[in-house]
């Protein structure tokens, strides 16, 4: 098939960039032709090839809607798959093309701002069973294709290397390290997660521990900067960290490291080779008790490195967290323009989950976690979910009615 994936730039370090890169490169190996339209005005020049993927220019619209149809026609694409929350679109879903949105749903009941953009779609991809159920409740059929993780890259390192990782990130070898890997967004409820961690410390005063906050502690956008999207903006975390007296218990990197991102794997450089694999390998627990997750790559990446995660028992997160722990959440807040519900993880619940993981046999748990991550390995996602989906699309796009049934005429003739 000839496919276009539209979303965060393929060469970027966001979760969606990783999804596009991993999916595109594997689809090429499967014999498909793949092009990419990067969003965020990130390619203003001409088209070029990146790892075999033809990358088109971004256009002037933040979500590349102004150039999508033109590229679709020029590429003679069979489908245009978007990897972004569908509510960002205001024209793309109205075009007479084979629009296939990944419906990333991090809340319930699902917002009409999302469902309204799915009615014309050729196919809808749900990245979690939770999202699929929400869509079904709104009479929208979807195909489940989870986000994946490259388990060749994300893997547990040896004990010796783990200690080297800790040293590199200035963490003590004998301390209990809780990590948070998240963009600074209101939805991530980082200040609340800090409260959960603080309660853990209060309840376990004998535990030597640090919270490693892999996030930008300052908002990315300035206060007076006009913005587009769903108003899920970042927050200034520093005043809260200091007011809670957590300045010493929490570590965070230079904001440049987070803004630019670090590579997934930087080789056997344990001196200054910061990368995501080494980061997860220096954690004992990965904590991401956000208000809602459509999927949650950090859960998978941590699991692949043998590190358990804790998440809020809401939306797509529990599926991705696997053998990790869920934290109950009874109350919700509404933080964004579409007015969707984000649930507040229970503060005592977070402390309890961290205590459980502190006291558990983490080595034994690591084996379960890597097994869980393997199910979400990109190779498995492509063979178990993407391939059958594309075969179904092929027959639906090019049906050949014969006396023996419906096949794809493009394959048969």
């Amino acid at each position, binding site marked *: 098939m000839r496919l276009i994936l539209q979303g965060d730039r393929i060469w970027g370090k966001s979760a969606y960039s990783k999804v596009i890169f991993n999916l595109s490169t594997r689809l090429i190996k499967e014999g498909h032709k793949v092009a990419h339209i990067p969003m965020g005005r990130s390619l203003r020049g001409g088209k070029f090839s990146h790892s075999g993927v033809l990358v088109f220019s971004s256009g002037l619209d933040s979500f590349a809607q102004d150039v999508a*149809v033109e590229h679709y026609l020029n590429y003679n694409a069979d489908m245009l798959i978007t990897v972004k929350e569908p509510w960002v679109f205001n024209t793309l879903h109205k075009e*007479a093309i084979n629009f296939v949105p990944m419906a990333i749903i991090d809340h319930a009941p699902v917002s009409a701002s999302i469902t309204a953009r799915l*009615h*014309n779609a050729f196919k809808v991809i749900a990245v979690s069973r939770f999202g699929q159920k929400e869509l079904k409740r709104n*009479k929208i059929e979807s195909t489940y294709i989870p986000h994946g993780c490259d388990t060749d890259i994300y893997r547990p390192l040896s004990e010796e290397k783990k200690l080297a990782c800790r040293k590199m990130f200035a963490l003590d070898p004998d301390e209990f390290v809780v990590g948070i890997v998240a963009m600074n967004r209101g939805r991530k409820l980082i200040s609340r997660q800090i409260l959960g961690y603080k309660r853990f410390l209060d309840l376990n005063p004998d535990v030597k521990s640090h919270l490693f906050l892999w996030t930008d502690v300052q908002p990315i956008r300035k206060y007076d900067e006009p913005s587009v999207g769903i108003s899920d903006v970042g927050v200034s975390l520093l005043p809260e960290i200091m007011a809670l007296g957590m300045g010493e218990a929490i570590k965070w990197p230079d904001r440049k490291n987070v803004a630019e991102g670090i590579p997934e794997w930087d080789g056997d450089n344990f001196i200054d080779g910061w990368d995501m694999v080494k980061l997860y390998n220096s954690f004992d627990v990965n904590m991401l008790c956000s208000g809602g997750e459509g999927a949650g790559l950090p859960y998978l990446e941590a699991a692949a490195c043998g590190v358990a995660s804790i998440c809020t028992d809401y939306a797509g997160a529990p599926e991705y967290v696997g053998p990790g722990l869920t934290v109950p959440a009874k109350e919700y807040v509404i933080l964004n323009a579409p007015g969707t519900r984000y649930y507040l993880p229970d503060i005592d619940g977070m402390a309890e989950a961290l205590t459980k993981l502190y006291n558990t046999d983490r080595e034994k748990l690591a084996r379960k976690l890597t097994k869980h991550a393997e199910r979400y390995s990109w190779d498995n996602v492509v063979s178990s979910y993407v391939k059958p989906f594309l075969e179904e699309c092929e027959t639906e796009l*090019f*049906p*050949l009615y014969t006396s023996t049934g419906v096949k794809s005429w493009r394959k048969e*003739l």
Partner: protein
Amino acid sequence: MRIAMVTPHGVKCGIYTYSRDLSKALAEKGIEVCIIRLPRFGRKTSQILQQVVNQIPVQDVDLIHVQHEYGLYAGLDGGFYGGLNRLEKPIVSTCHAVGNLTVDRVIDEVSDKVIVHNKFCKKRFSFKSEIIPHGCTPSKTMDREKAMKKLGIDPRIPLVGYCGFISEYKGLETLIDAVSKIQESGLLIGGGWHTELGTTYIARINEKSHRLLPHRCKWLGFVPDDELPMAYGAMDIVVYPSIYSTESGALLMALSHGKAVIASRIGPFKEKEKLGALTTFRGVNSLVKKIRLLLKDEELRASLEEGARAYVEANSWSKVSEQHIELYEELLSHFE
């Protein structure tokens, strides 16, 4: 023989259902059908329609059959047919709607054969055309008691029904007005819009039905194929009050389920009335009388149901596909 059929496919759309059933019937008779998928929804451009033309595997097919309805081509019919013409293949067009002289002329000029569904359309289409009726699939309904139970309706209530897409020209206001005058009856409405869950018009009609028929009207929303036997099984009479229509796949679906149908007195439905397939009405009072009569007179209702089944038998997809094959063969013999 292998044909390319340009049509919407795999979407909630009457022309898709038509093309699917025709293609299945043709395939059963040994004709292979390559579907060239026409986008049904969204903003169309001449480039998008050209992409549709470019997809046709010209070397592998004997002819091109276009399923045409004005809305599908968004006024870009000229460019689309120009593109088809350049492929130098025999072209058959089935006009599901007729009467736009400018577009009809384009279709006539480029198509080697034009198919319409009935005499009314043949007259309105100002150029040469052949009548091949819309096909039907004889279908069974669910037992009435069981269907009523599934729908949560008291089986003692005489039930009038409608099932099909809902838009302004379907005349549902007339049906609601009529049923409101028949105190003992209930109304079951199945159907919705092609894409979104509703439209402003549907909301307005829904409000009217609840105002005039409190606790007497049930809305099912879009009824998928596998639930049609239940919906029709519950209905004693089915009404199609369209203000205008060139043909109605929904009405034929009701006939296919062997239902007694009352339809508005317009050309395509009058033709079916003459064949004994249904009865027609003009105006609310006339509809009230017909509903009352049919609810009371079981024999009359049974004779209409018999007429429906006979019509469906005479116009089964199998027979309709044979007519298509005859037309294709004749066309190809001239072309060679």
